[in-house]
Structures are given as C-alpha cells and as structure tokens.
C-alpha cells in the first residue's frame, strides 16, 4: 500500500460514522496493518453533522493531526452534500463513496467533481431490508471494501462478525442483518 491511506467519514449523529471508522480500523489491524480511528468531537446530538477519520498504513502512524486531504471520502447521508463541503481538501484523484439511490454519474454532477472516482450504493435501503432500521454504516463499509480493495471481503466479514458477536451476544438477528448488509452493499455498489 502506498504510504498512508486517509479516509474521512461524513455522517449525522446516530448513523454510526464513528463506529464505522473504529470497526474498519480494527479490521485493518487484524489484517496486520497500523491504523488510527478517531471522530471529531463536537456537540454530540442526533442528526448533527459529524466527522470521523481513519489512517491505515503498513508502517506505524505517528501524526496526530486531523486528516486534511483524504484520498477517500465516505458520505453516510447525502443530505449533507451542499450543506457541508464533503470535497474539502480531497485530491484530484480522490474517491467518493456515497449512500444514495442516484447513479454515480448523477452523484458526480451533484458533488461537482471532475477527476477521481465516484461510487454509489443505496445503503439506507439495504439497512432497512437487512437490519430493519436506517443504519447505513455497516453497508457503507461493504461498499468501501469493494471500492478500495483494502482487504478481502471474507477477511473483513470474519473480523466484523467477531466484533458484532461480542457486542450483540443476545441479539443474533442484529449480527446476521449487519453481515447481510455488508455483503449486499459489496455486490450492489456502482461505479462509472
């Protein structure tokens, strides 16, 4: 992997941006990588715009500043586009992965970006179908794994299943729902 992969997660309080960053970081750690996962702590309330970040690298990560120019941007809530500058600091060849029912071409027009790559997946619908609630974070991780090839899907699912089993021991349906959501998003994510 080239140097440090930097990811910025845009979401709203309650959508699981921080949890996604942590689960992704833990999965990267299981795959033998060094990482950081941290949210931007602000007023924490349901629905408020929130940011979370990842750095993933083969070498130990030493910098402790914010991620200013992420190579990958994940947008958990498309209503943030236009209100928050999700493209801020992103390099020309940046990758966007957006939770939306729009096509990648339509989303590219809304983002107003020329280079790079735009991926779209209807993570909200997938989470409604599989988990029964609009929690787009786990399906978006499936889309991220497909879009970036960060690690093998099977490896990621095994690690995430383990984490979910520790958290939701008494709710096996939540574990299965989340795993299905990841698999479906991995299959359904579109790119141009």
């Amino acid at each position, binding site marked *: 992997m080239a140097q440090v992969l930097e990811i910025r997660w845009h979401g709203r309080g309650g959508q699981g941006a921080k949890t996604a960053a942590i689960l992704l970081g833990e999965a990267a750690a299981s795959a033998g990588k060094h990482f950081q996962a941290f949210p931007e*702590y602000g007023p924490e309330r349901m629905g408020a715009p929130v940011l979370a970040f990842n750095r993933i690298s083969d070498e130990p990560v*030493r910098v402790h*500043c914010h991620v200013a120019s992420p190579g990958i941007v994940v947008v958990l809530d498309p209503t943030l586009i236009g209100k928050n500058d999700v493209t801020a600091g992103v390099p020309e060849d940046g990758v966007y992965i957006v939770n939306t029912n729009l096509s990648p071409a339509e989303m590219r027009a809304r983002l107003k970006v020329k280079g790079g790559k735009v991926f779209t997946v209807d993570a909200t619908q997938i989470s409604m179908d599989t988990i029964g609630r609009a929690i787009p974070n786990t399906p978006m991780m499936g889309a991220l794994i497909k879009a970036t090839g960060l690690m093998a899907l099977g490896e990621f699912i095994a690690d995430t299943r383990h984490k979910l089993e520790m958290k939701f021991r008494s709710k096996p349906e939540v574990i299965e729902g989340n795993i299905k959501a990841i698999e479906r998003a991995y299959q359904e994510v579109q790119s141009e």
Partner: protein
Amino acid sequence: MSKRVAITGNEAVAQAMRQINPDVVAAYPITPQTEIVQIFSSFVADGDVDTEFVTVESEHSAMSATIGASAAGARAMTATSSQGLALMWEVLYVAAGLRLPIVAPVVNRALSAPINIHCDHSDTMGARDSGWVQLYSENAQEAYDNLIQAVRIAEHADVQLPIMVTMDGFIVSHGMENAELLDDEVVRGFIGQRTPKHWLLDVDSPATFGALDFADWYFEHRRQLADAQTYVKGVVLEVAKEFAKISGRDYDLFEAYRLDDADFAVVVLNSAAGTAKAVVDDLRKQGVKAGLLKIRLFRPFPHEEMVAALAGKKAIAVLDRADGLSTMGGPVFVDVRSAMYDAPGPKMVNYIYGLGGRDVDTEQIAGVYWDLARIAETGKITSPVTYLGVRE
C-alpha cells in the same frame, strides 16, 4: 509474549490499571478521563481485580481517599483530567509532602474559562511545582508503558513520590490505534508488591502522618522533598532498562529524534511529537537538518541531559500546549531556556499551540523549522513568543 491490539488511550490505561491491580482506587469521572474509571469499575464488578473501588463525590475527595489509602500502606491510584485535577490542587501537595507513591493517569484537557473539553496541557503544567513526578506520553502505547513503569518509580525506596502519567485528551484518550499489551503475569512480576518503610496501619511500629510542622522542621522536610527529586532521574532510567527486558521497548528521560547532527531542534511533548517526527523526516529528505527532543520526564526536569543534547544547535523552538501568561512564554520554554543559560549558543523561541484542542498539523510545524532556519541565518529573533495557528 505481548500481543498487539486495537485500543484507545483510555482503554490501554484501564488495562494497565487492571494489570497493576491496585489495592484501592478512589475516583470521580470527568471527560475525557471518564472511560478509564468506567472501564476499571467494570473490572472491579467482574472480579477481575481485587481493588477496593471508592466512589466519591468530588476529585478533592478522590485524591484525599487515595492519600489515606496510600498512607495506610495500600497501593492506591486515581485518575482525572482538567477541572478535576484543579479541584485536587490542595491535596496534590499533601500527597507529595507525605511522600506517598500514588500513581495517577491524567488525561490532558484545557481549563475553563471559556468552557472547553478538548486537549491542552494547562492542567498538568499547573501542577508542575506540586512535587509530583510527571511522565508525558505521545500515544496509547507510551501511556500504557509509562503507567506500569510509574508504579516502580514511585515506590522505589529512594523516590517515594507520587507520579502523574499524562496523555492528550481525545487525540490519544479517544483515538484508536495499535498498541502492544504485556501479559498480566509479566506486569505483576515486574511491579511486585509495595513494601513501604512506614505505614499508618503498622501497629508494631506506630507512626504519625501529616503532623504539624512549624518553623522548627517544615523547612527540613521540604528540603528532603527537593532532595528526593534528585534521585528520580536515575530510577527512571533503571526502571526503563528493566522494562525494555520485558517489553522490547526503550525509554529514556526524553526521546532525541534525529537530534545528534541536527542544526534546528524542536522541543515538544505528548501527541504533537508524533506529528513533528513526520515533519523531521520530510525536512531531512529536503536536506534540512531538523531534529526533535520529546520530553518524557518533565518533573523533575532533566536539565543536564537536555542541555547536553541541545548544545551546539543553531536554533531551538520550544512548543508549549499551555500558556504561562507571564508574557515570556509557556512553561516548557521557560524551563528549557533557563537550563540553556549556562550553555549559550542556540537562539531560542517559543510557540504556544493547540490550546483547547486546536489542531496542529505538519504544515505548521514545518513552518516552525523554516522560522528557525531564518533565525539561524539572520541571527535575529523578531518574535520570541508566537501563537501558532491562532486568529489574530
């Protein structure tokens, strides 16, 4: 032997406390330290530790109960941050004056006002003259390692002093990264048992603790407290040497990063040191002889070793994440410049940065090195104290 885990700073410190298995923990929650005592209380509830966990109504009481337990002969700990440490003020001095080897993680956070929950070092910098030993930590790994070593340092017969081990609030306390944890048995073997010379519940050899001490003896006891500080350096190094044997990780009084042949040095502590190391590597690629000195032991201040490491540099910048409000720079700058008085040579400047959690990035730190290059070239300092990244 040790295992690498994905962990936050708070989780790593709570795990170290579980492995230390103190006799008594008296604590009160405060963001961003809350998780430490919350996680530790679950270890108590699950029977993973033998600790008597005392929930108290304030930080003043937390430190007071910790002092009582430590005086009684127990291995006692607490944890706090920011306003919590400020509320402990009065009793911090008691812990040091009574020579009690209490170990306390402190998660660095700004002080009010204005109200703020984010990282700066105003809390522990304000406690620097209390007699507590202070160890600063760049990341979760160092916070974990320092806490384990702190037990040995504090309880060493020549030291017998309380120690605070700090890490940056949110940046390290809530950020998740990799760290290597030692096996429980290895940690327990390393720290051993506390064997105090005098203890309050020793009925065979009764002693008075905290007695009244007027003009007749107070001065002598304070002199002894100052004398104890002179032994800390040697013990810190001795414990670090033994710790390297069980962990494979080396610790010193400070970390000199590419400093030997450097022309320009930045002195900094805690998480910004990691960011600065990346800047040093980048500048070295451009042919700039940049180096870094990251302070680990700030109290007592290892001035002789620091002067030896910094002598001969062309220009030095000290980065402070706390403002002394003296109009002559932050606390680290004042100490480093004072130490360097007898080794004249380098031009020295101060940067106050990151107050209340303001981010400091690689570009800003690179700017500091370029300032140093200009100062070395012209011999002129235009601004002895600069506020880095503030809107003026």
